[in-house]
């Protein structure tokens, strides 16, 4: 081979090597930007807190299909949301930093839940700790698709045991809002499904969201003002919060950082849950212990609420 040909071949090799390296680097960067499921989920959590949007959702569960109008906006740094059914009996919910007002059929009055000041301490400003959650969930990117006419990335969050649900989330490429969310059982079978059929998103708000005092869920100290304990918790679940309401109801909150369960304890009332029940994927179970009504409720499998219910003990 002529020297100049060898030089050209060498230069070409160098150029091709550099081009290949650059291509790989670009592909890796693109993968990190779009394909990294943890980054996508963190973007989604931030979008849910900071984006103003309004749209129509369809909610599918147990062969029942509901259409809901949803609106979320930020006003003076506070998040406000409303939900309203578009078919079936009138059902509506308004949620603000002050609490919740909810109207459901068959109820004589709206259900009001005031947010206690302590509750704000647990509101996250950064969202879930997805890296930590990988101990209990397998999180994978599942490629791209389209929802409501928009490009989305599919992320699978599959539980590693029977004590929590999984999710399959379709995250909007542009806004990072979840346009479709499927709630899955341990076998990855859908239990419920929410999907936007129409969505209007406002530009990012300039008003900063009011920062909470704590940014991540941390395990709370065992409450000292109660005589109740929960002796056995599912793997990864920790005690996060305790409060006694104005009505004298003791409320314990447990969770793994994503799934959560509440334990309510009150003196025996005329109406108390004896046994187990469910509202879609929300399970509840109750029984009486030492003249007190114990009710466990959460969006977790039935086995989880029963596990906690069986672990409730009264220490005299």
């Amino acid at each position: 081979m002529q020297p100049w040909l060898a030089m050209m071949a060498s230069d070409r090799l160098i150029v091709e090597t550099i081009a290949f390296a650059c291509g790989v680097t670009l592909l890796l960067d693109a993968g990190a930007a779009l394909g990294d499921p943890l980054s996508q989920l963190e973007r989604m959590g931030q979008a849910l807190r900071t984006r103003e949007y309004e749209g129509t959702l369809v909610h599918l569960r147990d062969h029942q299909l509901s259409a809901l109008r949803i609106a979320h906006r930020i006003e003076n740094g506070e998040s406000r949301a409303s939900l309203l059914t578009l078919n079936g009996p009138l059902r509506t919910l308004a949620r603000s930093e002050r609490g919740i007002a909810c109207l459901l059929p068959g109820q004589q009055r709206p259900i009001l839940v005031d947010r206690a000041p302590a509750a704000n301490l647990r509101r996250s400003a950064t969202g879930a700790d997805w890296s930590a959650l990988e101990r209990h969930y397998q999180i994978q990117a599942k490629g791209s698709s389209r929802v409501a006419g928009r490009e989305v990335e599919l992320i699978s969050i599959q539980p590693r045991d029977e004590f929590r649900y999984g999710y399959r989330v379709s995250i909007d490429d542009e806004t990072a809002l979840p346009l479709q969310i499927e709630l899955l059982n341990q076998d990855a079978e859908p239990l419920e499904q929410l999907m936007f059929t129409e969505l209007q998103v406002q530009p990012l708000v300039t008003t900063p969201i009011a920062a909470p005092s704590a940014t991540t869920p941390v395990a709370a100290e065992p409450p000292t003002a109660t005589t109740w304990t929960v002796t056995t918790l599912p793997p990864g679940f920790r005690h996060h919060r305790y409060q006694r309401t104005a009505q004298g109801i003791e409320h314990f909150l447990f969770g793994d950082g994503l799934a959560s369960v509440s334990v309510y304890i009150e003196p025996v009332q005329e109406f108390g849950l004896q046994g187990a029940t469910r509202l879609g994927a929300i399970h509840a179970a109750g029984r009486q212990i030492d003249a007190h009504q114990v009710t466990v409720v959460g969006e977790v499998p039935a086995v989880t609420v029963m596990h906690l219910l069986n672990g409730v003990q009264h220490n005299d």
Partner: protein
Amino acid sequence: MQHEPHQRLSAVLDQETTAAETAATLDQLLNNPELEARWERYHLIGGVIRGEPVSPDYRLLAQSVAARLATEPLISTLPPPRRWFIPWFEHWMPLAGAAMASVMLLGVMVWHPAVDGLLNQQSLTHPDRMLALATEQPPALDTVDAWPLNEPALESKLHWFVLGHQESASFSGFQGHIPYATLVGYDGQ
């Protein structure tokens, strides 16, 4: 706060009310069948416009449309520009007449094919059966009784527990509207 009932409902949807004002408005809604009927008509019309599934016999749509045609004139002018968070149904008021006429003409309800396909793709078979409480062994999912809709007081308490739980459990920042949609979207009929 506005004084017209429909404006109060609009304010609730717009989140321009405090929790107490919302409660008062919702309470008035419960005690005012005419207001509730008006509110629901807006939603039915909106569903028709969007092609969303509305059961043909639910709330006797044809009668509702006929009554509205008889009592309210068609609106022929567009509303003035408004802020972004306009109550959604107000957007459609000018279109309502045309939609109602279309409905009357066709006389049928059209199920949205995409939604229908979505429904057919699911295999959610959890027959609700009575549960004998077994505190030692957790029940299987399909043996758990459904929400006690026949016991309003207990049902109300459970709803209160669910909402209180969700407010306390918002630490993950992930679930967003899911838990609330589960509760609000549930139709026990």
